[in-house]
């Protein structure tokens, strides 16, 4: 009997999802027993041409991590979609956009400007920037096109399943791979993780007051947090109430608050909005100025609540700089019309 074939691929990502697969440790050997990995650039020397040579649908599954930002990434994931029976959006970036998705707060032009001219160590006085085509003495060199925004995988191709986390926890990866191999397919569109909030599995759950309210939010470096008490009850912004469990509460075990990498539960459309409302509802204030004072303690709401999910959110991106941020020089709205391709 031939083993089912699977592929792993990365897009706009960091390689942490690949490391998470390596972190299956000896279970990797079981996986290799059960499946043929026919494409995995971080570890194996197979090429895109090897994938092109497969019949359509020949891959049992393609595990794709990373968000989508370039023409090249689009082409490869479209190819993998054709070849794969099931596509799994692997990790927070593929599912929700992830931390690289915060780039949707900046225009493409402002990124290029900073990197190749503005940064203090760059000698960019002559205005040289990378080009999609460059004539060199020996011929012509090409680079892929960068899209205007970061997109999630299911904004580009059809996705069958989602594995949450930054990176996905090893036990969830192992369960997902084996379920697919053994044909125990869950309902299409499923997120392959427990569907309850982190607070439900938090070892500090018992110390979370029923009627929790917060009068002052602290930043993590401002206090020494008690290692056994609910972090929200200590005034730290912990996204446990709004975030899916399944991670083993490892950040809490390190005495640091949840930042939301596991994304929302199935009942939530917009993770950032849910997190924002979960925290806002705790604010112990009645008057407008009291509310403003407490809310003002959360100095970076987008980076706090939408840290992993901006491209998937109802906001998707920032389209115009507001007054408070215009000092950072972000002509985002102008750039969205295109024409900034240098």
């Amino acid at each position, binding site marked *: 009997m031939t083993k089912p074939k699977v592929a792993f691929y*990365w897009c*706009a*990502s*960091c390689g*942490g*999802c690949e*490391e*998470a697969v*390596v*972190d299956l*440790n*000896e279970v*990797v*050997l079981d996986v290799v027993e059960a499946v043929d990995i026919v494409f995995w*650039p*971080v*570890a*194996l*020397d*197979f*090429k*895109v041409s090897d*994938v092109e040579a497969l019949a359509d649908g020949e891959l049992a599954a393609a595990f794709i991590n*990373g968000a989508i*930002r370039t023409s090249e990434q689009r082409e*490869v994931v479209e190819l993998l979609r054709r070849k794969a029976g099931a596509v799994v959006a692997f990790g927070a970036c593929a599912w929700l956009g992830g931390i*690289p998705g*915060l*780039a949707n*707060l*900046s225009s493409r032009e402002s*990124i290029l400007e900073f*990197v190749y001219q503005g940064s*203090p*160590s760059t000698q960019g006085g002559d205005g040289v*920037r*990378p080009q999609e085509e460059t004539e*060199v003495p*020996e*011929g012509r060199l090409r*680079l*892929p096109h*960068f899209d205007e925004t970061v997109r999630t995988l299911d904004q580009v191709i059809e996705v069958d399943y989602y594995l949450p986390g*930054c*990176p996905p926890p090893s036990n969830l990866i192992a369960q997902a791979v084996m379920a697919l191999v053994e044909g125990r397919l869950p309902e299409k569109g499923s997120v392959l993780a427990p569907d309850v909030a982190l607070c439900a599995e938090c070892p500090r759950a018992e110390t979370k007051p029923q009627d929790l309210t917060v009068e002052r939010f602290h930043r*993590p*470096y*401002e206090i*020494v947090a008690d*290692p056994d008490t609910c972090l929200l009850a200590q005034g730290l912004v912990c996204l446990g109430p709004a975030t899916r469990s399944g991670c083993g509460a*490892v*950040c809490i075990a*390190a005495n*640091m608050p949840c*930042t939301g990498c596991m994304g929302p539960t199935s009942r939530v459309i917009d993770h950032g909005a849910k997190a924002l409302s979960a925290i806002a509802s705790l604010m112990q204030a009645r008057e407008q100025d009291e509310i403003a004072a407490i809310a003002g303690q959360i*100095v*970076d709401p987008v*980076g706090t609540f939408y*840290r992993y999910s901006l491209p998937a959110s109802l906001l998707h991106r920032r389209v115009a700089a507001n007054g408070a941020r215009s000092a*950072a020089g972000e002509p985002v709205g102008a750039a969205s019309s295109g024409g900034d391709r240098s």
Partner: protein
Amino acid sequence: MSSEILIDPITRLEGHGRIHIFMNDEGSVDHAYLQIPELRGFEKFAQGRRAEDMPQITSRICGVCPMAHHMAGTKALDDLYHVDPPPAAKKVREIVYDTFMVEDHALHFFFLGGPDFVVGPTAPKAERNILGVIGKVGLEIGKEVIGVRKELRDLMTEAAGKAIHPVFGLPGGISKPISPELRDRFVAGAAHAVEFGKFSLQVFRDVVLSNAEYVDLVTSEAYTHRTYYMGLMDERNRPNFYDGRLRVVDPQGQEFLSFDPKEYLDHVAEHVEPWSYIKFAYLKDVGWNGFTDGPDSGVFAVAPLARLNAADAMSTPIAQEAYEELFSTLGGRPVHYTLATHWARLVELVNAAERMGELAADPEIVSPEVRTIPTETPTEGIGVVEAPRGTLIHHYETDERGLITRANLIVATQNNAARIALSVDKAAKALVHGPDVDEGLLNEVEMAFRAYDPCFGCATHSLPGEMPLIVEIRDLRGELVREIRRD
């Protein structure tokens, strides 16, 4: 007839890249370009974020070396908030960092770079990987490699929250002290790591040094460049991965610079080319004189061989022996053979393992005093560490609320980028002839970059990033004759 070869993507590295080789009428290589086709924009979207979130945000530049970014970021926060962490906090950070260094170097040797030697540079591509290595060394040893790596990853998880994307770094310290029980596990882990390091060095001797063909390959002119070398050194000019002064030696091995990392802008600058998204760092003191080596070129190297070249000695006994063996075997310091980086990496693996043991034996490491609460207004902070693949610089400026107004990051692979470009070009010129180029030969071109353990994900943090590899062969009219891609 002239032509082009495209290797796309290059493999067994972190990130995406391609190699574009131009051939001339005589069938030899005119020029080989290593291109990085991606970028992500971290420095830009860092603006407006809370400074204390930077160690967690920037770790997403690279999931292979998240601990390096987390640690450089955390040290930058100490500087930003003008706060000195308690001794125990610094020691815990360093032991966790050394644990990471052992694990990451092992990953490269057994999973990424090592298969070229253990399985063979021109072995079938389906076997040139960790599974091929296990096939060669046996399942029992394979399981041992996996087992040691797991033990080290578990220690990192316990102390830092997560091995991939740690959370424990705060300005002025760490979020949690280590318990005596965890310390005992570090003691045991360090002992296993030292044994593992000695075993790995023996594998290198048995597989590479005892094979004349491999020794010829390592010492061949095709993989040699005479450049400057940089590394972070302790007060006795021995490599320290967590802290110290940056030392640069010239191509003769003489000290050229020794400076406080906070002065990096005086000595390191970045050059831009239109054909790649990566920026090429060079020594400002020498200047950018194009893609060339020698004392008049500001091109320099970082990573294991560069650190050893820049060092007067190693800080621990077994590593010191291994350091001496390396230089006496290869003709004295500095060694310019890029492929010797694989050997230097294992010398460092042992060094980090021994340093883990020293720190675990220090009674102060279990002190509960691991936080100094910042009281001063944040302004500007710089943090530098040695990532496994070389010097890593984080530089933040904030407003009075500690929100980032400007971030500048220079990562290891950018420091190496110009030398990597030289290496790929030189190897291609030496190895590739005629239009009928087989896949094994192209893998030998890839070995020229793989030795650096490059992280093109890191290097393209500035835009949305990844790295496939392409080799194109074109004729004089620019017609594509052959394209070899790994995406």
